[in-house]
């Protein structure tokens, strides 16, 4: 295709490098330096998408991140496809494939377009109003609404790209590489500040870099030449780091900022291989200079959304920077002088300008006079009342404005045009400023919100047009002055610049331009992406919405992927006008990060897959793997769950393991239990205060089970603590609670009881724990440690011995979580696998059976031992657990003691721990199942729920623990556990099912 819309412009576009790309399957080409948008326009394609609600055809409207319409899907690879990419931002590369979104079957003929005809029936809040009733129909509505909602398609497969994070510290961060940003960066770096300059484009210079106009000169040359020279110079400054293609996403407190650097999105798929795609910069800057510029406003008039209607500044950039004519017969519509700059650029490139329509009465500024010299027809005090052309603008209708601007008068004039540039003034980009906590003030001369210097967080300034300076003279003068003051600089190379510009003399602003038709019959779009019109905003106000935040959500104005960058000011203006409020008092909606969307990849960086969360493995982990263990996650730990043999199911394996542990001997890796080493002269007193039971009289070499409460009296953690010496204890905690228990104990020690001489050290990883249990456990231990006297007299239950295995020091505790005669060997972790294997070897003739967490849970349930976190849930007191025996009633105080007799904790209808037996011993209850008394009651009263449930191979029946209202009084009573297809009959019992007399501990 000949590119007749392309002019020669070798500065920014490399016309020697042709790049082919596809749009909706059609093969096209552009040049290196193009964006997808400029390449499409060069191919005379304006229609790129459909609007969200009415499916109206929409075209490229801007040349930057504020683009509401030209949103495309890039690629169709299920793992790499990228939705909601702005065609105005993505740089063209060889092989790029883009697709229109939100249209079916295609962008030229879209079935959803029927919504456009139905639009009188789809006012603001349509969905809220219509689908409210009947409530039961919501699920059916939802299916259709969800189906038609949403823009773009998410990738369906994992993202193979690499993303990176980088921390960066600097003295001064300059955000934005336009003329003021470049001046600031130079001043900063030249004055010994480590400086970082960021810009989201691939080339520095903002809009000035292509401003080649006689009206705007610095030191006698056009502003673009002057700036080009400056950019060349700053690249050699040592203290200055420049990052292009890097967009600032968020500005948090204490000058912490996030920026996304695009590293490969502009490269062809081949060139991308093996490279990092995006990098998230986490920046701490001592000082921040915001120079984010401004974006042009559209004008709000009837049918202002057709393909071919663009911002006047975008038309200028396309011709001056990309060398692309946006049309052959261009019309400009404006309320200020900016459109005249576009007119001159177009004229220079030989584009025919149909006319300029200006709502002002007259202007005699330098640039307007310059345009008048070219004999371009200017319709002063006129407005557009309608446009025509479905897939591309073809005609406009204009009329004269009444003096007050509220109506149109005179005869309608119809003009033929294929492109309309609109200019409604400028909006400073204050997003970052407000994100950081800055407050805005309103300037009524030109209706802009600006950073309020008195309400600016410290260590930052805004300069340039984001600070409300739109004239190049003001920009240079004020940027220089403000940066010098901010950084304490005395003299600057910009002090004596001679700047020439065209001063704008006349302003006129009409938020909603009148039409010859009543408003109900017009379509003046405010938010182009969400299809909200000025009508919708008016309706919302009539319906009583007053707060700007409410109007925004009700009409969805400003809620698209562009976040209202184009539309918000007009919505505010219209609301202020109708409600008779001052815009400054009305305020703006909140600007929240990110400024432009971030990919999830950039947010997570390298923290994916196994790097997302730590995996903790015990010293014996590889042994478990080799012995085919199945693992379960307990916090970050991988714990052996069960060891299936010969194709056993989990149930079968657990039954076998549980039987073996009671009949001969079982072995468990208990290393994950938390271990805290406690030392100090007040260690006993400390334990007295943190556990419910008494500790002062525990003899050295003895162990004791302890229950720990929260200050509210609820059970928090439990475990066995051993007295190793006069002032030395080792505490065990639950696996999941280890870190929190340590934090809690440290908190009390440091803040409530600093007078106690106690030191806490976590030793969870330092020691591994091997638990050997069962009637033959003594025989195993005597083989592994022949020197140790294992007689009940010398080594009774709940006691501890220091010992040595193969020259390795170890601590052996005789404690039991299963009710069997059992031992725990604690050993330095790097020897633990060796000792584990010694035990396995010693147990060969006794069928020593490794068992996992599931069997451990089953065995302890047979004994009615609780697991905190399974049988408790933060609402159970010791008494609720039928563990009143563990409360040291004579103790003066312990954590949670006072709460044990609050009016709520002494209620006797609290949920309390009970045992449950099913009438059919083969029936196993589901954990979490509800327990009821009356089946036909409506609503049925739920008395409690099952917390632990197993089939006990040692009792040959199903057993369960449950919590039930007034459970202590219910022993022997019958209840139901209703399931989906049956009701299970159960009887409340004691919590101890097996060996009630504890004979086996000493067997």
């Amino acid at each position, binding site marked *: 295709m000949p590119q007749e819309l392309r002019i020669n412009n070798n500065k920014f576009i490399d016309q020697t490098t042709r790049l082919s790309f596809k749009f909706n399957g059609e093969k096209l080409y552009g040049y290196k330096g193009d964006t997808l948008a400029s390449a499409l326009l060069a191919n005379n394609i304006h229609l790129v998408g459909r609007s969200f609600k009415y499916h109206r055809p929409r075209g490229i409207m801007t040349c930057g991140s504020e683009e509401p319409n030209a949103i495309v899907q890039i690629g169709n690879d299920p793992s790499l496809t990228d939705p909601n990419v702005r065609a105005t931002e993505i740089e063209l590369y060889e092989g790029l494939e883009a697709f229109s979104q939100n249209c079916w079957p295609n962008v030229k003929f879209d079935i959803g377009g029927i919504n456009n005809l139905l639009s009188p029936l789809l006012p603001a809040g349509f969905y809220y109003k219509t689908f409210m009733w009947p409530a039961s129909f919501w699920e059916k509505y939802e299916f259709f609404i969800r189906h038609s909602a949403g823009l773009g398609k998410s990738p369906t497969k994992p993202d193979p790209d690499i993303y990176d994070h980088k921390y960066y510290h600097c003295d001064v961060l300059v955000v934005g590489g336009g003329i003021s940003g470049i001046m600031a960066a130079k001043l900063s770096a030249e004055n010994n500040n480590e400086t970082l300059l960021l810009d989201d484009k691939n080339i520095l210079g903002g809009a000035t870099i292509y401003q080649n106009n006689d009206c705007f000169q610095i030191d006698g040359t056009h502003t673009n030449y002057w700036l080009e020279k400056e950019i060349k110079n700053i690249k050699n400054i040592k203290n200055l780091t420049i990052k292009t293609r890097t967009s600032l996403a968020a500005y*948090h*407190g*204490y000058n*912490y900022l996030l920026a996304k650097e695009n590293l490969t999105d502009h490269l062809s798929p081949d060139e991308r291989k093996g490279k990092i795609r995006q990098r998230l910069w986490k920046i*701490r800057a001592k000082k921040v200079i915001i120079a984010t510029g401004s974006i042009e406003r559209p004008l709000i008039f009837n049918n202002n959304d057709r393909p071919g209607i663009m911002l006047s500044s975008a038309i200028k950039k396309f011709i001056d920077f990309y060398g692309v004519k946006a049309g052959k017969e261009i019309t400009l519509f404006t309320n200020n002088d900016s459109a005249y700059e576009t007119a001159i650029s177009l004229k220079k490139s030989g584009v025919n300008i149909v006319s300029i329509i200006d709502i002002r009465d007259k202007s005699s500024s330098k640039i307007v006079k310059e345009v008048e010299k070219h004999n371009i027809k200017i319709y002063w005090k006129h407005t557009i009342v309608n446009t025509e052309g479905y897939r591309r603008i073809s005609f406009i209708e204009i009329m004269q404005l009444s003096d007050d601007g509220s109506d149109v008068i005179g005869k309608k004039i119809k003009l033929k045009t294929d492109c309309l540039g609109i200019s409604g003034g400028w909006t400073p980009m204050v997003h970052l400023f407000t994100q950081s*906590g800055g407050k805005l003030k309103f300037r009524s001369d030109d209706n802009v919100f600006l950073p309020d210097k008195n309400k600016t*967080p410290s260590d930052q300034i805004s300069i340039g047009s984001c600070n409300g300076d739109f004239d190049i003279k003001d920009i240079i003068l004020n940027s220089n002055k403000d940066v010098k003051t901010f950084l304490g600089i005395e003299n600057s190379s910009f002090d004596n610049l001679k700047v020439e510009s065209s001063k704008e003399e006349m302003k006129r602003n009409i938020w909603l331009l009148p039409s010859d038709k009543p408003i109900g019959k017009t379509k003046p779009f405010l938010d182009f992406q969400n299809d909200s019109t000025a009508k919708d905003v008016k309706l919302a106000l009539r319906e009583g919405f007053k707060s700007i935040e409410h109007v925004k959500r009700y009409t969805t104005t400003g809620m698209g992927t562009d976040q209202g960058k184009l539309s918000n000011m007009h919505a505010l203006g219209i609301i202020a006008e109708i409600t008779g409020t001052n815009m400054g008092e009305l305020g703006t909606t909140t600007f929240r990060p990110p400024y432009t969307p971030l990919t999830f990849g950039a947010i997570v960086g390298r923290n994916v897959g196994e790097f997302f969360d730590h995996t903790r493995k015990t010293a014996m982990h590889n042994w478990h793997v080799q012995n085919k263990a199945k693992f379960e996650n307990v916090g970050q730990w991988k714990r052996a769950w069960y060891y299936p043999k010969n194709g056993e199911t989990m149930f079968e394996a657990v039954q076998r393991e549980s039987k073996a542990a009671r009949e001969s001997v079982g072995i468990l890796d208990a290393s994950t239990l938390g271990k805290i080493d406690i030392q100090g002269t007040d260690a006993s007193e400390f334990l007295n205060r943190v556990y419910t039971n008494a500790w002062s009289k525990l003899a050295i070499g003895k162990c004791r089970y302890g229950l720990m409460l929260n*200050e*509210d009296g609820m059970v928090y953690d439990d475990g066995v603590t051993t007295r190793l010496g006069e002032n030395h204890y080792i505490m065990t905690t639950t696996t999941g609670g280890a870190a929190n228990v340590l*934090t809690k104990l*440290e*908190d009390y020690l*440091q*803040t*409530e009881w*600093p007078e106690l001489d106690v030191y806490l050290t976590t030793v969870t990883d330092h020691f591994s724990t091997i638990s050997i249990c069962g009637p033959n456990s003594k025989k195993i231990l005597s083989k592994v440690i022949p020197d140790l006297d294992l007689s009940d007299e010398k080594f009774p239950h709940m006691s501890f011995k220091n010992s040595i295995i193969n020259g390795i020091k170890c601590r052996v505790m005789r404690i039991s979580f299963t009710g069997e005669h059992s031992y725990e060997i604690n050993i330095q972790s790097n020897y633990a696998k060796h000792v584990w294997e010694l035990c396995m070897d010693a147990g060969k003739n006794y069928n020593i059976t490794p068992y996992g967490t599931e069997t451990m849970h089953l065995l302890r349930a047979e004994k009615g031992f609780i697991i905190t976190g399974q049988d408790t849930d933060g609402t159970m007191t010791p008494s609720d657990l039928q563990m009143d025996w563990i409360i040291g009633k004579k103790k*003066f*105080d312990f954590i949670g*003691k*006072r*709460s044990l007799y*609050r*009016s709520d904790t002494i209620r006797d209808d609290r949920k309390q721990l009970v045992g449950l037996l099913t009438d059919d011993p083969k029936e196993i209850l589901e954990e979490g199942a509800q327990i009821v008394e009356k089946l036909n009651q409506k609503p049925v009263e739920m008395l409690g729920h099952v917390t632990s449930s197993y089939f006990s191979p040692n009792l040959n029946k199903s057993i369960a623990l449950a919590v039930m209202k007034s459970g202590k009084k219910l022993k022997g009573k019958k209840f139901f556990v209703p399931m989906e297809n049956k009701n299970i009959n159960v009887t409340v019992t004691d919590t101890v099912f097996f060996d009630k007399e504890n004979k086996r501990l000493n067997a």
Partner: protein
Amino acid sequence: MFIINCPYCGERDQTEFSSGGEAHIVRPKQPTELSDDEWAEFLFMRKNIKGIQFERWNHSHGCRKWFNVVRDTSNDKIHAVYKMGEKPPVNK
């Protein structure tokens, strides 16, 4: 995201710390002598101030020490940092 000047380690990023809520709530010396209401006051009642707030912070990913911070919750400005047991350097 603020920077906290840990009295033991110096300036560190907020992510290294965890907040422990309102400061200067002393655990009663003789809880048994308190009524249910008095105990509940200690146990549950906390202020949530917009403005200057005295809070406990723990350098949980550092020295593990607890200390107090005077922070303006409306703009996160930290006015003072002081060790446990010390008097607040600004008026409470």
